[in-house]
């Protein structure tokens, strides 16, 4: 239904860091209202692509269109980005950070944040410094999911999170997802736990798209899980 109105379109997108080409002419589309899995090994360009969409880095060449605009300030209000790194102020407490995000983003819902805090067993008075890596990962996710925005970008949201918490977290994510208003793009190299949620998948390797399509259609066509498919695609 939304095939003709993709939320993001890229054409011949190039980005290099020094002598390394991170993206080599990516042309693809991300369908609206779906959860797209951006899959690939480390260094394949997933983070680079997400950062380009967010406008945190600039492309060398090619076009990138997000909800009708190029990356920039207009889009930032409508995109929630979860980076792989820890982008939180270490000395602030979780509650202070929630207040900070609330003051900066009109789409931020402090009630949702509070709800998710207790769902994930985090204490608001603790400072970021005092948290374990897994807790930081969970909290970053809370800050992202508490925003009611049309586009959510998650860059390796599961790294550092223990196996037991992962299904918990993915459940929480799905429960908040509204396909009529939102699109989620999730980049990961851990496919086993996440593939059941993907509507669409894009395989990225060495900065190029190896394969893309509807997840269930790919399963039917190849008779394999996405994980198994990935093993074959990524030589």
């Amino acid at each position, binding site marked *: 239904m939304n095939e003709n109105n993709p939320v993001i379109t890229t054409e011949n997108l190039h980005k290099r860091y020094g002598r390394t080409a991170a993206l080599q002419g990516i042309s693809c589309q991300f369908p609206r209202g779906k959860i797209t899995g951006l899959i690939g090994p480390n260094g394949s360009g997933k983070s680079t692509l997400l950062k380009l969409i967010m406008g945190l880095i600039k492309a060398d060449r090619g076009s990138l269109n997000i909800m009708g605009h190029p990356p920039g300030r207009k889009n930032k209000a409508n995109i929630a980005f979860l980076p792989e790194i820890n982008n939180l102020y270490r000395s602030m407490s979780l509650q202070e950070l929630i207040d900070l995000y609330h003051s900066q983003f009109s789409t931020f819902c402090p009630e949702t944040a509070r709800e998710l805090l207790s769902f994930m067993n985090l204490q608001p008075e603790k400072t970021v410094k005092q948290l374990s890596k897994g807790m930081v990962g969970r909290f970053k996710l809370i800050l992202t999911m508490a925003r009611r925005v049309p586009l959510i970008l998650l860059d390796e949201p599961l790294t550092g999170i223990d196996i037991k918490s992962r299904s918990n977290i*993915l459940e929480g994510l*799905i429960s908040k997802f509204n*396909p009529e208003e939102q699109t989620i793009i999730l980049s990961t190299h851990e496919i086993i736990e996440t*593939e059941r949620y993907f509507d669409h998948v894009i395989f990225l390797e060495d900065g190029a798209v190896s394969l893309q399509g509807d997840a*269930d259609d790919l*399963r*039917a066509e190849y008779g*394999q899980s996405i994980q198994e498919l990935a093993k074959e695609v990524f030589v």
Partner: protein
Amino acid sequence: MQVNFYQSRPIYEQIIDEIKKMLVRKELQPGDQLPSQRELAQQINVNPNTIQRAYREMEITGLAESRRGLGTFIISEQDLIKDLKEEMAQLATQNFISEMKSLGFEAAEIEKWVKQNQGINEKKTPGGEGNE
């Protein structure tokens, strides 16, 4: 509904299969209302779009129908369960036969195997629906 999904088959198909099994096991009746897409997605921990696809597919194949403003319902067809049972029996049998043939058995031997195992009751493992 308790489902463990195989990732190598389209998930929406597995959902439809599970609903069919529930009908055959009388856990669901013809004419029953299916949970809302959102509810079901939460219940079995699946992307709501996948549920949408499953429901749409069931409407296309005539297994379910959507009533404006009310939701999605299994059709109230009398023979529905009978038809489903036949459909699923056919599929199970075909799978069994092709499995046996791939092991090298001929038709007569296959019949013998079926007769041999007639009397044995299947033990239900706890919460074991959908486990093979």
